[in-house]
């Protein structure tokens, strides 16, 4: 653990990418195999099933610190991280003798995982015991491992780079071995070092991701060099059909097979050794349903007959990644598409190829894109016909050409402190619009302001607080912000009766008085016009 804590410290105290890669690489080279596997697991953001929830930790923290609950909450709001709050309040003093060294693997396998099998009292005694004996840094780390993922400013691709460096293997190979389900163990690490990696039967491929198109579409050159498809608004997924079994993966590398039995049933007709990339969509009759409807299915591990009837799902295939057990990713999109169309012929509509858009010129395509909202899609995808299927977000071959978002002007009503980098700053905002002379909250947004704007707004909020509800403050309704959102739906869960999809701040409008912000009537009109189109 000490060695991993040192690695963590190095990663946490440098902003240099090179230094981070070197530090990880050095750790992987020197750590015992099982520790190295666990470190990879943690650094790429994998998390264990939690055996102790944050509510319990808070209760124990209250007991262990002897501080009033409200003061712990106040401190937590300022620190922005529970694991850190605990370490700050109750870890062992730096002067105390360090406890016996316990390896990273032993921490997981011998200490954290077994928590699941003991009573709450025993859990408390053990966890509080760790708090009291570990000094700040290790106490913080153990809490992080207990509560979830370890955000330490390294991306998955940085971990891949470090592994590629120390194992002398191509990054694509490493990337492939890390995707999907695997168990951190000495065996996994040894397989990784021998370049055998994690190639179990249901292993998916890393997803290729598109970048947002900036500037004029004409700059891409000739229209004929680009495939155009609708940008569907569902869950990106991969169907892996191997060894007589079908597995459906989400882009978050979760197995979602059981959640979509109708897709699996249709995919069972594919020959063995086939992998498809595509989108899971809720689809009723001849129409795609809004994302909000699909969301009602995502949460259910085993959907009921009623849900299956009311919100049926489909898989729209974008690409063919494997055929007859052979990796087709190096082929051009043109070749993969031709094969995909042949493979998809005469299958159930539940499994179909994503239709290509017509439009011989960019102008015609732009006109078709104008129909996106009406069709319930987010915009257009443009893919270079000559491109192989890449890994991650490599710019240049795939572009997403989204339709312009909706915008409205809202008034800042409430603010709460942020987390992580934004701890100790009021950065979680709630905005309202006018309804009969009062402001009703309609959106929460966290992103879109510059650091300088955040700082000055934070100061203003502290001085202009009206009321405090725990850590949330209501403020004088004064500041107007232009907010963008991707979609709108009616909602009985919100006081305003509407729910906005992915709201974010476009700009601060110091020029606009609060009285000139939008009204709920305006938003209801947008809702009505969208529903009219999709009815």
């Amino acid at each position: 653990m000490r060695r991993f804590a040192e690695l963590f410290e190095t990663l946490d105290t440098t902003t240099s990418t090179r230094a981070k890669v070197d530090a990880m690489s050095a750790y992987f080279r020197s750590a015992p195999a099982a520790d190295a596997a666990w470190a990879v697991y943690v650094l790429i953001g994998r998390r264990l099933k939690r055996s102790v929830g944050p509510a319990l930790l808070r209760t124990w923290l209250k007991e262990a610190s002897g501080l009033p609950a409200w003061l712990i909450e106040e401190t937590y709001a300022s620190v922005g991280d529970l694991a850190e709050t605990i370490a700050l309040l109750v870890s062992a003093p730096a002067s105390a003798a360090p406890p016996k060294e316990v390896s990273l693997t032993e921490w997981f396998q011998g200490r954290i995982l077994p928590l699941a099998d003991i009573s709450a009292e025993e859990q408390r005694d053990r966890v509080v015991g760790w708090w009291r004996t570990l000094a700040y840094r290790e106490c913080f780390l153990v809490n992080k491992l207990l509560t979830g993922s370890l955000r330490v400013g390294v991306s998955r691709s940085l971990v891949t780079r470090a592994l590629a460096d120390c194992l002398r293997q191509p990054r694509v190979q490493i990337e492939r071995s890390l995707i999907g389900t695997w168990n951190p163990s000495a065996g996994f690490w040894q397989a990784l070092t021998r370049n055998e990696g994690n190639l179990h039967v249901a292993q998916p491929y890393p997803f290729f991701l598109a970048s947002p198109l900036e500037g004029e579409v004409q700059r891409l050159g000739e229209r004929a060099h680009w495939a155009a498809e609708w940008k569907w608004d569902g869950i990106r997924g991969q169907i892996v059909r191997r060894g007589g079994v079908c597995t459906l993966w989400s882009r978050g590398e979760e197995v979602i097979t059981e959640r979509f039995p109708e897709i699996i049933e249709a995919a069972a007709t594919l020959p063995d050794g086939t992998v498809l990339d595509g989108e899971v969509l809720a689809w009723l009759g001849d129409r795609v349903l809004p994302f909000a409807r699909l969301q009602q299915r995502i949460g259910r591990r085993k959907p009921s007959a009623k849900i299956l009837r009311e919100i049926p799902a489909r898989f729209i295939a974008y690409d063919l990644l494997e055929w007859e057990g052979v990796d087709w990713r190096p082929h051009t999109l043109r070749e993969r598409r031709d094969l995909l169309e042949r493979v998809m012929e005469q299958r159930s509509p539940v499994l179909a190829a994503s239709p290509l858009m017509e439009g011989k010129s960019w102008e015609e395509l732009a006109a078709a894109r104008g129909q996106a909202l009406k069709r319930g899609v987010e915009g257009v995808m443009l893919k270079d016909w000559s491109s192989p299927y890449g890994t991650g977000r490599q710019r240049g071959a795939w572009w997403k050409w989204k339709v312009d978002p909706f915008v409205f002007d809202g008034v800042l009503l409430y603010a709460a402190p942020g987390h992580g980098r934004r701890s100790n700053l009021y950065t979680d905002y709630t905005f309202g619009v006018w309804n009969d002379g009062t402001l009703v909250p309609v959106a929460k947004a966290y992103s879109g302001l510059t650091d300088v704007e955040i700082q000055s707004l934070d100061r203003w909020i502290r001085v202009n607080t009206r009321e405090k509800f725990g850590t949330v403050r209501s403020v004088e309704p004064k500041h107007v912000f232009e907010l963008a959102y991707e979609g709108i739906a009616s909602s009985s869960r919100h006081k305003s009766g509407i729910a906005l999809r992915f709201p974010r701040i476009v700009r601060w409008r110091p020029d606009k008085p609060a009285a000139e912000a939008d009204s709920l009537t305006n938003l209801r009109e947008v809702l009505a016009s969208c529903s009219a189109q999709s009815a």
Partner: protein
Amino acid sequence: MSMVDTADLITVTAAGLYCAAGDFHIDPWAPVERAVITHAHGDHLRAGSATYYVAEPGADLARHRLPAGTAVTPLAYGEPVYLGSTRISLHPAGHILGSAQVQIMQGDRIWVVSGDYKRDADPTCEAFAVVRCDVLISEATFALPAYQWPDTAVVAREVLDWWHVNRAQGCASVLFAYSLGKAQRVLAELARLTGDLVYVHGAIGSLVDIYRGRGIDMLPTAPATLAKGADYAGALILAPPSAAGSPWMRRFGEHRTGFCSGWMRIRGDRRRRGYDRGFVLSDHADWPSLLRTFRDTGAGRILLTHGYTDAMCRYLREQGVDAQPLRTEYGEEE
């Protein structure tokens, strides 16, 4: 009991903390007739008042920061001055060189205004002196239990190690610290561990000179000029936080940055500010020191001027202590 005795000895007016019985202000934020100053930081010492009373060790700093010709009356720590019906005296606050608590006595009442203070040892200024009082007006910059300072010697060692690691890699180390107080404290703490030269930003250099004039032992310094052929590889440079990201930084070539502040106790603060390293070194009292000070002074009533005043007030009230916030314009920079 007379009328005067029941009214608060100090109130907050448009110009700042005011004592009507003595007709003077403490650290006013607008020009007044008589200003009693706790220390020379910009939010406590502002120009424009007619007369200033300062603690003698801080007199040169006050003169440096005030326009030429301003009337500055230095008072030795403990030396009484009689203003109106009050007796006032200044006592070490341990914040920076010449920082003072103001004790005000009238009849049998004793009030103390702490200004900014810390309880940790600091080689650049006299240690905080406990002054017993009935009412204590205190700062609360770091009044949350998360703020507990590590041992200064350990932090100084961390700074030195960081510098040496960077030096071994041929990098400059740019350490940000407030120009007045913190920078000199760092130079004095490091002087116990090394004798190497440190480069300093102009804003820090002139204050280092004043500290040296007061006999404070610090590492040798040189201005971080843009002289031809200047090579800062491996050097330690002290700069005010405002220099971060400015063109002034270009002269140092490849460098790492660090920041010395109590705010660096919180990882989110550290990450947000984008420094490579944060060193937890504060010139303010941490949570345990605040509570200890309230107890030590014996004050039956605590008034808090700036920082996490709400949290501390509520905590004290729940402990049965009479506590209220005061609305002042003092900053929370460190």
